[in-house]
């Protein structure tokens, strides 16, 4: 029905112009996403001030408080989540380890977005041959299991933090590359780009001023999903013993260390894994909210409540 289609596209435009609800209100409408966002804010606080505030407690060996189970406040609030084999507070250790865990994931995602996005822009805009070569390389990277790729690269280069970030970024670059290139190919055909070229804009100028603003929101949407993926990947690598090496600590490494005490002190392995899960869950909930908000048709469902059915006569 062409008439029906015409009117829903008109309504999509009018939604943007009217902009009825602010970001906060939209976030509040989706309770799950709201909780996720709040949790990420808490984690950000842990990352920023955690090691400074609780660094000492995380390293304080107290053999009298060894292997305390979580759940009781008898030994003080620091031991609410239990303690490890050396009597160190689990709560403090978790908070301190959050910095490495989250920053590594964040850095990888940023690097992947910048490099992948740039390569995608180039592949889409510059000539056919360059584009094809880039796409083939991207295919090669994507066709191989990311974990194995990371394993072999980290074997050759030492598993230092920088290498870890780079290799994780490399495994994620193809998805940004693909999306950026697709968007560029589509936009390139549009009239305003021709107009800019006719007015004498250089290729770089056109890329930057006209194409980047359209491509960026899509890339940002992918970033939130990617953040979860990279966190899980790094945790997996550290768990296997190939990622972060002691004395650096991340939640993944904590799980590996706790694995030996599974029957005596299950919380040593369980709690760090739970922390990973909560963080990735929050990121995934937030990313699905972002996707809904970016799509005008679905966004409407958040803004308006449900309605009754039936024929309306006037």
């Amino acid at each position, binding site marked *: *029905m062409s008439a029906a289609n015409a009117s829903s596209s*008109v309504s999509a435009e009018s939604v943007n112009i009217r902009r009825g609800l602010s970001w906060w209100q939209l976030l509040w409408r989706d309770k799950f996403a709201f909780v996720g966002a709040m949790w990420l804010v808490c984690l950000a606080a842990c990352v920023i001030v955690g090691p400074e505030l609780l660094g000492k407690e995380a390293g304080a060996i107290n053999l009298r408080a060894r292997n305390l189970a979580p759940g009781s406040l008898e030994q003080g609030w620091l031991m609410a989540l239990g303690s490890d084999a050396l009597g160190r507070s689990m709560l403090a250790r978790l908070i301190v380890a959050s910095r490495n865990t989250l920053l590594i994931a964040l850095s990888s995602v940023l690097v992947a977005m910048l490099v992948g996005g740039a390569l995608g822009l180039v592949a889409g805009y510059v000539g056919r041959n360059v584009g094809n070569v880039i796409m083939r390389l991207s295919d090669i990277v994507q066709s191989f299991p990311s974990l194995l790729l990371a394993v072999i690269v980290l074997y050759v280069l030492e598993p230092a933090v920088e290498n870890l970030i780079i290799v994780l970024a490399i495994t994620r670059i193809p998805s940004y590359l693909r999306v950026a290139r697709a968007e560029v190919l589509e936009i390139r055909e549009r009239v305003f780009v021709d107009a800019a070229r006719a007015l004498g804009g250089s290729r770089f100028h056109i890329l930057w001023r006209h194409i980047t603003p359209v491509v960026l929101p899509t890339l940002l949407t992918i970033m939130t999903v990617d953040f979860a993926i990279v966190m899980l990947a790094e945790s997996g690598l550290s768990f296997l013993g190939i990622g972060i090496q002691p004395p650096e600590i991340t939640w993944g490494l904590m799980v590996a260390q706790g694995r030996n005490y599974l029957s005596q002190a299950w919380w040593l392995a369980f709690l760090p894994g739970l922390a990973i899960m909560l963080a990735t869950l929050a990121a995934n909930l937030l990313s699905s909210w972002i996707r809904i908000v970016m799509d005008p048709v679905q966004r409407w469902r958040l803004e308006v409540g449900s309605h009754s059915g039936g024929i*309306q006569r006037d």
Partner: protein
Amino acid sequence: MTSATDSRADTAALLDINDLHVQFRTGRELVKAVNGVSFRVFAGETMAILGESGSGKSVTMAAVMRLLASPPAYIEATHVQLNGEDVLGLPLADWRARCGRDVGMVFQDALAALNPVFSVGWQLAETFAVHGIAHGRDAQERAVELLSIVGIPDAQQRAGDYPHQFSGGMRQRVMIAMAVALDPMLLIADEPTTALDVTVQAQIMELLDRLQAERNMAIVLITHDLGVVAEAADRVAVMYAGRVVESGTVKDVLTHPRHPYTRALLNSIPDPNESSLSPIIGSPPDMANLPSGCPFRPRCSFATDQCANEEPAIRDAGVNDHHSACHHFEQLIALEVNGNG
């Protein structure tokens, strides 16, 4: 909307639609696609539903066939009856049993409307199997027979082919075969020729004509093409903005239109003797925001204040059940008499 009096009231209609309303809630908008449509189709006749895109002609028949998902569609009517039996109130499974058997439907784009992963013969044979008429080898043979009836050469071979392996015209024949397989009393054809070349169009219309004669089928022909109406239909209902604005025999309506919209449509047909075109002024209505009163008012040269305040009722406007929904159709009659019709 009161239904108009029908001088054939003593004969039972095959398809009887009375005051049908269909609305869609999509996004923030409420689209009133069909607003009080009523008409009847009698056995063996061809009824054309003429209108532009957006007039509600396809939605009307889709609602009658109960093919609209509800929500987002909301359907209400005083009654919709096929051969005397209620359609809308029937449990869906029972209605499905009648689909294909009592009424068949042909769609516009045969490439999209045929399942790409099953062979044409399989899809035809399924019609028989699903209604319990024939199964297995028997159904396959009937499928092949059907293909040759609708004019597909080498039917035995072609039955194993897939929809994308046929040309547009052949595909449409397959669709028609599927619709008439069980010898239904009514065939609904939704713009069956719109996507085809002119020469192929003629062939398809000829096929429909032949099948109708052979099987004494009634046909509801949905179209925007005046030429098709003139050639193939007995009666026509002209739709605008979800309403039937004029109905009657094809001869009466096309030679003596009694509604400004029909008149404007006929006038807009390019005349090789004229040096300029005379399209209908204004633009098609926004179905989510219909004007008050008569929906054609913004584009009508006969409009008055009454037209803005009051929706026109369908009234008798001539012989042979010629009806019009216009406050001022008498003016059109006057123009005719004066030779300006």
